[in-house]
């Protein structure tokens, strides 16, 4: 098990190294690092000082090392478009994205698991057939279209919910939350449904497939033969065993949700990191792109790692020590 964990850790480090290198290449070769780091009104002396401080006269690997050290301190320079430190900009927008992604994941799980169980237990009911057909359409439906249709119906035609922004937020230290105000909660509804729709369909289809699989196994038949109630069989024996793949997929989806938040945030003008990133691309704002890349890379790597480690906890078979390369 230690070998497994170590190997995963090493892989994660390698990915982070590559991501860091790409960000470095972006920063140093695509952009002009001196003007990236300095405000436009800097003098020639400032530039020379900055060049020395950045160590641009130094060999390539030393520059890369400096970049990594800076990145670990959250120093990505100054946004070209907004003229403010990138770290501040990202930190300001991080809570909005995380709250949105969290609620979207919650929707995906809270609705996806029961619907998946239902469609597995009652495969022939008309509701199950409808749900399955709808989920197929849902997979074909691009995320931003769902958002636009929701805005059209609930914001434009019915006028029930706001269609852009976060509403009023409460400051808790550097964190801003929309959970504590009515307008903040109302503003969350449409974007989180939009973002949660894809994980919902995935979770539902996955739980259904796994449940159908497990319900066919011998131990479920045996449980039924023992005279256990349907309820105990379905939920205690069957559902519990479907949760391992569900954890994996949901975990891996979590990264996808943060990436897809880019689109949802654009549709709803949600003041998160994704919107910042899209605007950075439109204006070729390299420092923000590099920083976003590193941050999202880190989130992805941590999630993948956590899912793998969780797997070890949930699935005892992985805890057995095996010779290398035998997996």
């Amino acid at each position, binding site marked *: 098990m230690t070998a497994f964990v170590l190997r995963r850790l090493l892989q994660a480090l390698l990915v982070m190294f590559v991501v860091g290198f790409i960000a470095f290449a972006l920063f140093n070769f*695509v952009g002009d690092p001196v003007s990236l780091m300095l405000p436009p009104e800097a003098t020639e002396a400032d530039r020379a000082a900055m060049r020395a401080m950045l160590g641009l006269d130094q060999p390539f690997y030393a520059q890369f090392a400096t970049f990594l050290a800076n990145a670990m301190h959250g120093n990505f320079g100054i946004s070209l478009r907004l003229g403010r430190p990138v770290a501040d900009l990202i930190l300001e927008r991080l809570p909005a994205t995380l709250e949105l992604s969290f609620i979207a994941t919650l929707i995906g799980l809270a609705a996806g698991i029961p619907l998946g169980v239902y469609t597995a237990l009652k495969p022939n009911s008309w509701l199950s057939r409808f749900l399955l057909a709808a989920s197929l359409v849902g997979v074909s439906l691009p995320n931003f279209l769902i958002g636009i249709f929701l805005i059209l119906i609930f914001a434009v035609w019915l006028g029930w919910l706001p*269609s852009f922004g976060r509403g009023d937020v409460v400051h808790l230290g550097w964190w801003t939350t929309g959970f504590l105000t009515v307008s903040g909660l109302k503003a969350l509804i449409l974007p989180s449904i939009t973002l949660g729709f894809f994980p919902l369909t995935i979770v539902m289809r996955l739980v259904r497939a796994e449940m159908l699989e497990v319900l066919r196994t011998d131990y479920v038949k045996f449980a039924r033969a023992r005279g256990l109630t349907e309820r105990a069989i379905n939920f205690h024996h069957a559902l519990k065993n479907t949760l391992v793949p569900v954890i994996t997929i949901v975990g891996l989806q979590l990264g996808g949700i943060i990436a897809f938040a880019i689109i949802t945030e654009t549709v709803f003008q949600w003041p998160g990191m994704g919107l910042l990133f899209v605007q950075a691309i439109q204006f*070729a704002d390299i420092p923000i792109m590099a920083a976003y890349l590193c941050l999202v890379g880190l989130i*992805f790597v941590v999630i993948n790692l956590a899912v793998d480690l969780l797997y070890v906890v949930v699935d005892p078979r992985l805890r057995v020590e095996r010779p290398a390369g035998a997996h």
Partner: protein
Amino acid sequence: MAARWMDRDLVWSFRHRPDVVVWSVVLLVIVFAAIFAPWVAPHNPFDLATLNIGDALTPPAWAPGGNRTYLLGTDDQGRDVLSTIIFGSRMSLLVGVLATLLAMVAGVTLGLVSGYAGGKVDALIMRIADVQLAFPAILIALLVDGVARAVFKTRFTDQLAFYVIVIAIASSGWVRYARTVRGSTLVERSREYVQAARVIGRHPLAIMFTHVLPNALNPVLVLVTLHVSEAIITEAILSFLGVGVPPTQPSLGTLIRIGNDFLFSGEWWITVFPGAALVILVLAINVLGDWLRDALNPRLR
């Protein structure tokens, strides 16, 4: 390969799936309209001379205030929405198909080389694939697009934007082909006919492309079909985010983006119809792709 297409099983399975037949007809109609857009479209939305700004924001023909000449209404510049959709599908399909083909050629080549050469080359290509797979395709495409914008800066023309988006989408999708082909290549490499070809001294490249490749292509066919719809969605997303094809040659995604601005003033048709067209196009390709996957590989059923 040609024989596979005429395969009796495939034809039989096609004729026994009425839903697939219907969606294929839908897809054929869309593709036909897209290819012959200048002749099929009732108006030419990009010919400024025929545009009548007085007709701007006309609702669909059946709605109050609608006009028979504009079946699905007009946008803010008086362009016929139905015609922009036909021209938009043309752009969406063009980018989607080109990007898919590019990804396929790159992925298949890298997969072949990786599987056939093995060793360090294999390790390098597959590690790159691993790292890339850790990130969603849309993020890769966005990043490639953003880097291109930063590199070319003011020289970033409309023409260039088209190629950049094709390359961006292709570079986000090559991994699946490389992995699939590498897997089949590893199996085929040890077969006797490959060893025989090697013994008679054929060039490794010749062996790869004339012997191994034809036997590794079936799964690629399925991947291509499903990838086209994904590429079309990715293009639509990029265009919707404003980093896709230029507004002078709008795709369905661009049209949705333009229409989105008019949602609140009540002109819903400018965005809803291109959106519906996108969903129908993608759904048709997906149904066909799913059917092809099942038909070519009965074990998956």
